[in-house]
């Protein structure tokens, strides 16, 4: 099938280019959600928006604790570092170092997801409590789903790594999962900033 010169081209492989294009489409998906959030927030008379008396009577209040998510942010950033460590190790041909990097990244990712689920249980508003609740759960929910997808990706790569499938020359899946992991990390930093920090 390599008859017509495709395989001889320089630079990144077809799979890597395809993966980067896929990531570009993911960026646009989150771009759409973020745009909705910014428009809603710019239009609101106050942020968080005012509640109805019924909502207040039900005990709804639109407030976010910063401490736990801040720790989660640190965990996710750290996992990005360990993921990159895994890539650097396999680039040097060190399978053991790569495995440690993958294990730790996967564990940190799962801790992040658990912390986010726990955080959800501590909130006093739901998705139907004003545009604030809707945007909060939509943005963090879709991000969480992507973290879960990324963790699954790393898990598959880890299983393959345990099977000794990666070498210094051939470790594309490790690089791809690392890029995906950095992507969800960057999205989270943006989310944390706009949802929790900017008042």
């Amino acid at each position, binding site marked *: 099938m390599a008859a017509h010169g495709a395989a001889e081209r320089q630079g990144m492989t*077809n799979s890597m280019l*395809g993966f980067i*294009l896929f990531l570009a489409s993911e960026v646009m998906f989150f771009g*759409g959600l973020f745009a909705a959030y910014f428009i809603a927030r710019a239009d609101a008379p106050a942020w968080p928006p005012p509640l109805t008396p019924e909502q207040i009577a039900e005990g709804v209040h639109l407030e976010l604790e910063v401490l736990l998510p801040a720790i989660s942010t640190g965990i996710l950033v750290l996992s990005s570092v360990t993921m990159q460590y895994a890539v650097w190790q396999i680039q040097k041909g060190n399978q053991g170092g790569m495995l440690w990097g993958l294990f730790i990244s996967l564990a940190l990712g799962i801790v992040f997801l658990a912390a986010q689920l726990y955080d959800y249980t501590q909130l006093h508003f739901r998705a*139907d409590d004003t545009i604030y609740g*809707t945007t909060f759960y*939509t943005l963090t929910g*879709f991000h969480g789903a992507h973290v879960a997808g990324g963790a699954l990706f790393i898990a598959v790569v880890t299983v393959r790594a345990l099977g000794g499938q990666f070498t210094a020359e051939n470790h594309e899946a490790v690089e791809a999962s690392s890029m995906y992991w950095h992507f969800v990390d960057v999205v989270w930093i943006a989310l944390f900033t706009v949802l929790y920090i900017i008042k």
Partner: protein
Amino acid sequence: MATVAVPQLSGYHRPAVLDWIMTVDHKKLGILYLYFTLFFFAVGGILALLVRTQLAVADNSFVGNDAYNQIFTMHASAMLFLFIIPVWAGFGNYLVPLQIGAADMAFPRINALSFWMLPPAGILMFAGFIVDGGAADGGWTAYSPLAQQTGVGMDMWIIAVIVLGMSSTIGAANFLVTMFRMRAPGMTMFRMPIFCWTMLVTALLQLLATPVLAAALVMLFIDRNYGGQFFDPNGGGNVVLWQNVFWFYSHPAVYIMILPGMGIVSEILPVFSRKPLFGYKAFVFATIGIGGLGFSVWAHHMFTTGSVLLPFFGFMTFMIGVPTGVKIFNWLGTLWGGSISFPTPMLFAIGFVSMFLIGGINGTYSAAVPVDFALHDTYFVVAHIHYVLFGGSVFAVFGGLYYWFPKIWGRQLNERLGKLHFVLMFVGFNVAFFPMHMLGLDGMPRRIAVYADSAGWEALNMLSTGGAFLIAVSMIPFLIAVVMAFMRPKDQPDDPWEGNTLEWATTSPPPDYNFDSLPPVRSERPLFDARHGDEAH
């Protein structure tokens, strides 16, 4: 560059049906795309005939109001999401690897996935007709709050469109990698066939715009099912937000629906004018320009909302007429002084240029903000979109089918029936859609099921309905030509038209591996060079 010898395996062969279901061959998938999309073209066409029958006379009660809403919504949804957008993926699948001299797409299995997401989505969307509350009936634009008020058919529609969007997003990535990295030796980007260029820009638009539609649909789904407040002003949401995110996709989507058609026309005109495409690079840059500007004009669908910056979006909409005008001159310049013949593909290509020109002019006309305020949501807009999408895209689809039929199926469609098809369709199209300009200027709103006798719209509506049925009749000679072609043996030579591009350098139809050998590529017309290579340039 010799092809790797393919060993002839003896023994087990998959049954033909399984072979079609399990194939990852770009040519077979391309044919599946074409069958699938033409089926939904027929379905959407039948729905259009129901719409036109209802509107033929004043105070009509042929279908009820609720049924009418479902019918026009599903007509547009079928035509846009299940016909026009994937039909280009069909042509692209079949032609892009052949035109760039590759053996297949970059990711054949992802290619199969892209196709096989379509049938479930189509079934899901149309299954709305059998559920409580009927199919989606909020218009293909699904504006809130209208889209919040309808039955479960709307949710099925949302999921179907998300799945179709995923199909076209991963398909787009596949096309891009294929064209960036699998071109034959010697084929630089600026020697790539013009159809490939239009597919490349289309794929970029799909890759970057479709996910935004997915985000919008997800928000709509959350609003409908989980108490979300995105589009509900009571909870701080904003109905215009939907229009912004929806049109941010759907305006680029308009170019997704037309650019490959322009590419097909730009393949046909040079071949039957016996000249190279006039201004190849200008055409490429105009295509890129349309793609880029396409992202900055979405709010011209929203002038009357009062919440968009009118001068900016009006100006940008005029601007997008410039690269479009460049293309009209590309086509006219190609014809100018050419040695022109008029086989059926050429007739459809010229039909495209003339009808698309009208669609471009009446579109630019509505770009003027004060004019748009008068014409918004009238039949003038319906006339415009049909001049670009039917007069444009559908004419290009049939032009492409007649042009590549010998390559894809190894047989020629009957010329006389083809010409009859073209004449009936061209006349029927204009009779159906030209009166809509007058109806719109007369104030007839779109998407109404019933109008009063006293409105004075009946004569033009009756005329339009007659045109619609004439379009339907025009499909009869086409179908007869197809049946006649399939009753004949495969007798077509490699290059029946004296084409320019690499797909004509292999047999008709091509073998599984596409090429035994490739001619050298030293221009954008390698086959012309191969025929006339020893003559002085």
